[in-house]
């Protein structure tokens, strides 16, 4: 049987390195071919997991704990599919964006390749130290991509991002060192039963450090300070990749650690605390999104808010009845996927609007409705998922989370979710209202190539259809 697991990691590593050798500005075709191949590989892996259950792959043939194991289950397959499914349209989009923009492309493609390699390796890793290496690869690639546009804003945003992401990895690594000190192993499979059997204080400290580091990387409120400048200042294809995928990688690790590795020591109080931070993110992020005057900053603050919903999983699924926990867990995973697709579409649409109008201010959007109907429609569809309107994926996700909150009697999360929904409707409509105003006399719209509009539309459409395909996705998620 052909095994897609190693190739999902090798493919982006290979094309990124070849694109680097080709030189600045080159490698777009290689990237498109490579990501298309990876999408096929991820789909193959998903089918294999549905048919045969979770998989373990022993790199080097040694097996944990001496060697490094890779592992793939339903959740990894969902995240791998999301990553490649978002990256493929964005690869087409990025080619058009940089061609239309004459923006300095330089080493965009190799950096993107290493970014995807890092994410695929992270989703497949079953070893806490190996995860650290993938986090470093991911962080450096993301920082490089933020800085790729040059200029004072992006470079200082990239530096701030670099410091935040390094601090996060540092805290994570400290936790890994403590775990190794206590148990003598870094393999997830070896550690889980040991932690369940006996967990001294050092393990709680390790858990706190690792989770804090990852929360910083996920930009959970109040650690979100680095995200809006980094995502708002980067070129649109980069913002889309970072907001849709990169923060989900560290969130995925928090899920894994909380529900697998540290489940025996995870307390309800800590879960409520995580939920409270999530609620803070939903409210604060939405309020700040509403106050933004620049389109990409608005979309970036919307990411801060949407990340908050993801953290409602923890209070809803920790210490709850199995059915409630399953519903919360599914809702959270669905939210991660729906937000990934919708936010990529939203940033891509925002980039197209900015390319056409030549302005980043929301005030400059008047007339977009008549001149760029497809791109505005994309923004609307993506906005439906962000607001959680049916039949979008965002609706199904928030419905499952609401159901879990009702069933467990935690009404306060329902209040947060409803308030967040209303606030997100307010900031989406703030953009739409401006776009539907008649164009100013002096306004000049640059014609856009079709490849700058269609990839974003497909992503938005996928985020909407996810609501109808939710049962297939949940089926894959549940395959163990």
């Amino acid at each position, binding site marked *: 049987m052909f095994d897609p697991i190693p190739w999902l990691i090798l493919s982006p590593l*290979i094309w990124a390195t070849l694109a680097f050798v080709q030189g600045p500005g080159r490698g777009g075709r290689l990237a498109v071919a490579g990501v298309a191949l990876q999408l096929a590989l991820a789909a193959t892996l998903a089918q294999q997991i549905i048919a045969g259950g979770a998989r373990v792959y022993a*790199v*080097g043939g040694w097996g944990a704990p*001496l060697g490094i194991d890779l592992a793939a289950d339903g959740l990894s397959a969902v995240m791998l599919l999301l990553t490649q499914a978002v990256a493929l349209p964005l690869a087409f989009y990025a080619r058009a964006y940089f061609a239309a923009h004459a923006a300095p492309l330089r080493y965009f493609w190799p*950096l993107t390749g290493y970014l995807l390699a890092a994410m695929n390796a992270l989703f497949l890793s079953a070893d806490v130290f190996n995860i650290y290496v993938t986090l470093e690869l991911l962080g450096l690639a993301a920082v490089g991509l933020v800085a790729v546009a040059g200029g*004072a804003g992006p*470079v200082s945003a990239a530096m701030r991002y670099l410091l935040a992401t390094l601090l996060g990895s540092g805290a994570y690594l400290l936790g890994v060192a403590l775990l190794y000190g206590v148990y003598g192993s870094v393999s997830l499979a070896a550690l889980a039963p040991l932690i369940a059997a006996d967990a001294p204080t050092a393990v709680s400290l390790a858990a706190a450090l690792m989770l804090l580091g990852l929360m910083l990387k996920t930009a959970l409120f109040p650690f979100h300070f680095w995200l809006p400048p980094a995502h708002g200042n980067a070129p649109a294809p980069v913002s889309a990749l970072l907001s849709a995928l990169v923060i989900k990688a560290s969130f995925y690790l928090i899920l894994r650690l909380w529900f697998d590795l540290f489940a025996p020591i995870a307390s309800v109080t800590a879960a409520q605390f995580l939920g409270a931070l999530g609620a803070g993110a939903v409210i604060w992020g939405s309020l700040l999104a509403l106050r933004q005057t620049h389109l990409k900053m608005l979309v970036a603050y919307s990411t801060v808010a949407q990340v908050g919903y993801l953290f409602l999983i923890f209070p809803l699924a920790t210490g709850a009845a199995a059915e409630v926990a399953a519903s919360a867990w599914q809702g959270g995973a669905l939210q991660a996927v729906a937000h990934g697709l919708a936010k990529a579409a939203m940033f891509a649409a925002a980039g197209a609007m900015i390319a056409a109008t030549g302005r980043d201010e929301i005030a400059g959007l008047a007339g977009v409705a008549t001149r760029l109907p497809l791109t505005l429609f994309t923004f609307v569809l993506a906005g439906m998922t962000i607001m959680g309107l049916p039949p979008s994926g965002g609706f199904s996700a928030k419905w499952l989370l609401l159901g879990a909150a009702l069933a467990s009697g935690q009404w306060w999360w329902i209040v947060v979710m409803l308030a967040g929904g209303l606030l997100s409707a307010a900031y989406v409509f703030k953009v739409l209202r401006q776009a539907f105003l008649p164009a100013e006399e002096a306004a000049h719209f640059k014609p856009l190539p079709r490849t700058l509009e269609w990839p974003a539309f497909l992503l938005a459409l996928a985020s909407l259809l996810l609501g109808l395909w939710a049962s297939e996705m949940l089926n894959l998620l549940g395959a163990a």
Partner: protein
Amino acid sequence: MKALLNIAVLSLTGALGLVLAWSILDLPASAVRLPEQVTAQLDMSGVAHPVTAVLLNFRGYDTLLEIAVLLLALLGMLALPRQASGSKPRPVPASPMLQTLARLLTPLMVLVAGYVLWAGAHRPGGAFQAGAVLAGAGVLLHLAGLLPAWATPGRALRAGLATGLLVFIAVAATLMTQGTLLQYPPGWAGALILVIEASLTLSLGLILAGLYLVLADSKVQA
């Protein structure tokens, strides 16, 4: 306000340090004993030194990703748009004394790098250390005015920077025809590890030298 913040940060880090120290003093004996497993499997690893066995064989996959991290660090620096290099493409020529010394030392450093690479199989050494020595030679040559800075690496240099990673990936992928990723067939491990380490030495030397030489000449736009 700033003093208050400083005190808060200081007391937080101090508290973390104390808790860390206290929990480290209290560590139980490890349940898993990896050093013993490494010793037990050392004969199978193709090399006689445990560190090299872990880095290139048992946990070779980590090393593969780490090489990508190093290349990426340099790539991140190259990706920053920079001002066109000014009127000083080369450093001020150093004294003839330093130039002569650099010319004498460089071949010696290459020789040392070769030895350190070879020694890695059975004693402390290997590609990282050998690459660092090579990089040192590169920096020395630049300081002596014999090697220009690398503001924009050409294709040959980029190929050299990438060779180590590409050879590593090629070996790892080829081995999948026999088993899993990076699973050395019995008897071949030593030779394959030497091939990987030799190409890594070259690329790591270039990458580490690049971290210095790329910045030596150009100012990043800010």
